[in-house]
């Protein structure tokens, strides 16, 4: 066989093995993306054929107060929950990494809540946050009473939606903790010994040795968190939707997208929203990759 024929054969063999994914991603990812890019430019009321309208959907979105509200809510949620989440995850990982006894028990306790399906987690917190009989207020009530304060109504109160969401998100911090602990265990011991000889205390060693050494893991985690925070859906969908209407502070981007497409049947408008979301995700990822390059470079010098 000629070498050319052989190369072709290798190419075909490779394609055949990659085949399932190539076909799958063509049908379930690339085709849908192309479709939604086109539908974003159309008026498409589910039961009628799409009608091309150019950028009308995007212009309408710019003047849609609900759109701007869900953007604001989602940005606030991502902007507050991600830093808090990352900080808590790093501190817990640092403590677990200090080789205390029962470390595995503590780690399991923090990890187990991440196993709880989102929908079950929403139910449990729905109960915990209940203004009247919820555990959270049963505990907080007596603590606050001497100060003349009473606990908030949490998910029922617009002002307390964000803190409730952050708390619920924090309950799932265990997965990141496990990732960070694994990364911390790969940091060479000599670095700590050298830092100790330089007279660094535990906090400074954590900040100046541990954090830079695990910065790649932090970066990837923060990117993954961002992508999922921008899409947050199941928990607020269950918690803030009421027969009398959604709590306006608990109305998030993907919830509105879902309602637009599947409740009001405005497929074109929903696709326009989806593309904006995709571009935001890509832009945020790009910015974080770019900004982090300097940080990683900085730690190596």
């Amino acid at each position, binding site marked *: 066989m000629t070498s050319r024929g052989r190369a072709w054969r290798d190419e075909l063999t490779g394609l055949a093995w990659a085949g399932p994914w190539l076909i799958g991603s063509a049908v379930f990812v690339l*085709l849908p993306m192309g479709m939604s890019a086109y539908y974003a430019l159309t008026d498409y009321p589910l039961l009628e054929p799409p009608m091309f309208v150019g950028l009308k959907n995007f212009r309408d979105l710019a003047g849609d107060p609900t759109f701007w509200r869900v953007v604001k809510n989602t940005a606030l949620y991502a902007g507050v929950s991600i830093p808090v989440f990352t900080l808590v995850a790093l501190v817990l990982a640092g403590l677990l990494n200090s080789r205390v006894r029962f470390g595995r028990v503590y780690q399991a306790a923090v990890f187990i809540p991440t196993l709880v399906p989102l929908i079950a987690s929403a139910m449990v917190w729905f109960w915990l946050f209940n203004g009247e009989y919820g555990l959270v207020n049963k505990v907080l009530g007596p603590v606050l009473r001497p100060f003349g304060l009473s606990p908030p109504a949490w998910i029922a109160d617009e002002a307390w939606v964000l803190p409730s969401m952050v708390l619920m998100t924090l309950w799932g911090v265990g997965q990141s903790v496990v990732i960070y602990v694994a990364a911390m265990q790969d940091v060479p011991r000599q670095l700590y010994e050298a830092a*100790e000889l330089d007279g660094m205390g535990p906090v400074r060693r954590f900040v100046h040795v541990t954090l830079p050494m695990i910065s790649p893991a932090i970066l990837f985690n923060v990117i993954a968190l961002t992508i999922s925070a921008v899409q947050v859906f199941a928990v607020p*969908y269950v918690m803030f939707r009421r027969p009398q209407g959604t709590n306006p502070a608990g109305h998030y981007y993907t919830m509105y997208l879902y309602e637009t497409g599947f409740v009001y049947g405005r497929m074109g408008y929903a696709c326009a929203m989806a593309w904006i979301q995709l571009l935001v995700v890509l832009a945020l990822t790009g910015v974080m990759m770019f900004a982090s390059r300097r940080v990683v470079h900085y730690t190596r010098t």
Partner: protein
Amino acid sequence: MRRQKGPTSRPLTRLMIHATLALVSVLFLAPLVWMLATSMMPESQAASQSIRLLPDPPSAVFTHAKENYKSVWNDRTIRFPLYLRNTLIVAALGVAGMTLSSAVVAYGLSRVQWRGRGAVFFLVLATMMIPFPVLMVPLYLIFRELGWIGTLTPLWAPAWFGGAFNIFLLRQFFMTIPRELDEAARIDGCSHWTIFWRIILPLSKPALAVVALFHFIYVWNDFVGPLIYLTDQDQYTLALGLQLYQSQAGNTPWNLLMAASALMVSPLVLLFVLTQRTFVRGVSTEGLK
């Protein structure tokens, strides 16, 4: 033995670390403990002002537990056993497809030499970033075209084409298997399929277990997929079914809601206890992506 160094060397620091971690552990487990406690109470006591872990009288705990869980299981409108069956069908078909197909693709991206390999691998990584909402509307239309809306098929069939993260994970694992093994087999005249089936797969059981486990959890968790594709309450999965309890707004039967939640959570916790090592290894590798 090496001298213990680091932040844990001073007794006071150690004590504070223990105290913090113990408190954190209690806070993290409290919601689950409360879920179980509520699930074993009569409705009137679940919705009361006092904090109690056991019903009054405490000896009645088993009676109430049995009663609550039984009424969740036997409910005529929210049919837990049916939703469990649906979820298990999706999980079984999905896990089988996801594990096998991802392994096949990962083999093509690690053991077969071809020029398009790098480009395809890059595409695999790129698709991991695509938010699902972008696909939501068109996927619904595609599945409607295929006649899959209102059936369980869209929840498991795509898994048979592999999943980006799982392909990535398995490829990284396959790369660590020494090349000499398949080169020797090739000299003996083995085909790629034989090498895959006889050498690579048996050596990759831990990684395959991670993929299977993660996909099972994914199916158990998935809410958006069933919400969009399922139309008939008889086809609901557990995630959708659980939501039915709460949407009967007004007077939520908290004890029953918590019993149903506990039934949904417990298989995963049990799975975790049984496969803790696989789990932690899998989660740790997630940080590498």
